[in-house]
C-alpha cells in the first residue's frame, strides 16, 4: 500500500498543491484583477483534467479542494466538490480533441475553471447559506476563467508531471486507465 502511494501521483500532487495553496493565500490575494482573486487551485484542477482526462482531473481537484478547505476554514468538502467538478469538466471537454494543441488546452482549462468557480456558490446554497450568489459573479467567473487559461501553459505540464504521465500517454490513454489514480 505504501509502495502504491509512493509510486502514485498523490505523492507529487500533495506537495505541489501545498505550494499552490501558499501562493493562492499570499500572492494571488494581492494580485487582484479588477477586484477579483485569480484561482490558481481551480485552474490547476482544470489543467489536470485537460491533461489527463476527467477522472484524473477530478482526483486532483478533490485533493486540492480538501487541502483548500482545511486551510481556509470553509466547510470541509465544499471546495472539494467545486474543484472536482472543475477537473472533471476540464477532462470532459478535452474529449473533443485527442491531442489538444496548447491553445485548446487553454480553452479547456479556462472553461473547467469557470465551471468550478460557478459550483462554489451552488454548493454553498445546498449547505444552507442564504443568498451565496455574489452580485459580481458575472464578472468574477470570466476573469477567473481567463486567468486560468493564461496560466494553463504552465499548469498543464506541471499537471502531467504530477500525474506521472509519459509523453506517449498524452495522446493514447494507458491500458486499464480508470484505476491508475
Amino acid at each position, binding site marked *: 500500500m505504501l509502495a502504491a502511494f509512493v509510486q502514485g501521483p498523490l505523492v507529487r500532487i500533495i506537495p505541489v498543491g501545498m505550494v499552490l495553496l*501558499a501562493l493562492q493565500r499570499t500572492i494571488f490575494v494581492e494580485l487582484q484583477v479588477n477586484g477579483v482573486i485569480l484561482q490558481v487551485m481551480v485552474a490547476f484542477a482544470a489543467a489536470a483534467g485537460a491533461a489527463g482526462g476527467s477522472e484524473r482531473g477530478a482526483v486532483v481537484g*478533490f485533493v486540492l479542494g480538501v487541502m483548500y478547505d482545511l486551510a481556509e476554514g470553509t466547510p470541509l468538502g465544499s471546495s472539494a466538490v467545486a474543484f472536482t467538478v472543475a477537473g472533471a469538466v476540464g477532462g470532459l471537454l478535452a*474529449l473533443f480533441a485527442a491531442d489538444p494543441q496548447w491553445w485548446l488546452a487553454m480553452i479547456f482549462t479556462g472553461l473547467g475553471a469557470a465551471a468550478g468557480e460557478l459550483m462554489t456558490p451552488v454548493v454553498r446554497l445546498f449547505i444552507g447559506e442564504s*443568498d451565496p450568489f*455574489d452580485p459580481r459573479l458575472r464578472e468574477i467567473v470570466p476573469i477567473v476563467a481567463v486567468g486560468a487559461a493564461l496560466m494553463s501553459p504552465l499548469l498543464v505540464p506541471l499537471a502531467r508531471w504530477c500525474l506521472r504521465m509519459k509523453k506517449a500517454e498524452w495522446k493514447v*490513454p494507458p491500458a486499464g486507465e480508470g484505476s491508475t489514480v
Partner: protein
Amino acid sequence: MAIYSVGRRRVIIALLLTSALLLTLDLRGNPLIDRARDGFSEVMDPIEAATGVVTTPIVRTWRAVNDIDDLERENAELRDQLDRMVGTQASAESSIIEAQELRALFNLPSLSGIDTEVAKVIGRAANNLDQVIEIDKGSTSSIAIGMPVVNQAGLIGRVTKVNRTTSLVMLITDSRYRVAVKVLAGEGDPSPTTVATTPSGLTDDELGDAATTTTSAPSVNPDTTLPGSSPFPGGTTTTTLPPDESAPTTTVAADDSGETAAVTTTTTTTTTTTIPGSAVEKEFGALEGRGRGFPPQVRFLQDNPTIAVLEVGDLVETAGGSESLAPPGIPIGRVANRADRSGSGGPLLDVDPHADLSQLGFVRVVLYKPLSEVEQ
C-alpha cells in the same frame, strides 16, 4: 488523450459523494476534522511564510504600478481629515471623559470597561465569495466564536472560527454577516453650515464688521468610545478667525445637555460656537453585508417620519441587547445612501463603514459575551 468510460464516471461520482460525506460530518461538528485543520495550519504556516517572503517583491511591484494613483488621492484625503481632527480632538476627549464619568456615576455599561485583545491580520480569504480575514490570536488568548472585532475606526466584523493560535474574522461586508444596529442622528450633510450669530453687546453697525461664525455639529458620540482605545475625535470644529487677528475672541462652549456656557469672554467682534452633536436614536434595524464591493445595508426599518427622518449622514452603531453578540455603542459607519421601497418594507440604508476594510493591519477583538450568556 484519455477516453471517457463508465469506470471513470464512477470515480467522479465516488469523489463527489465523499465530498458530501465530509461536508455532512463537518457541518455537524467533528473534533477530528477540527484537529486536522489545526494540524494542516501548522504544516502550512512555514510554507506560507516562505512563499510570502519570496513573493513580496512581486507584490510590491504590482502595488507600485497599480496603487500609486489611489495612494496619492488617499494621502490628500487623509491630510485633510487629520487637519480637521486635530482641531476637534481636545473638545472631543473632554466630552468623552465627561460622558464616561456620568456613565460610571449611574452604573451604566460602558464600552471602555470591556477587555480587548490586539491581533495582527495575517491573511485574507483566498476566494471571491468570502469576506474573511485571519488573525494571529486564537483560543489561547481567550478569543471565542462570536466576539466582535474592531479597529480604531469602528466595527469590522466578528470571530467565526477559532483555532489554537489563529482565528477567522467575518467582515461586516460578508453576505452572511448580520448585526443589530441603531441609526442615530448625525451630521446630515457633512459639509459645514454657516450661520450668522449675534455677538452680545454689539450694535447693528458694529455687527457689519463682525465676522460670520461657521458652525458645524461634531459627530462625536461620547458613548461610542471603542474599547481599549483612546478617545478619538470624529466631529468637526471650524474655527473662524476674526477680521483683525489681534482682536480678542469670545469662546462659547456647550455641555452635553446642549446648553451653552461661556468659558472665556472678552471684548470681541467674532464668536466661535461649537454645538454638540445630538446623538438621538432614530431607529433600530439589522445591518447585513452584501459582499465585496458593495456597502453593508440596514434593513427592517420602520421609518416613522413623526419620530425621526432617516437621512444620509446619520450615524450607525451596534444596538446591543441581551442576545446580541456585540455590545451597544460600537460605531459602524455613516448612512451613505437611502433607498425607499414601496409598501411597508421600509427604506434600505447603505452604510459607508468608518473602517477601511481593505487596509487592515492590526485589529482588536472585544472579549465580550452577550448578557444572556453571562447571566447563565
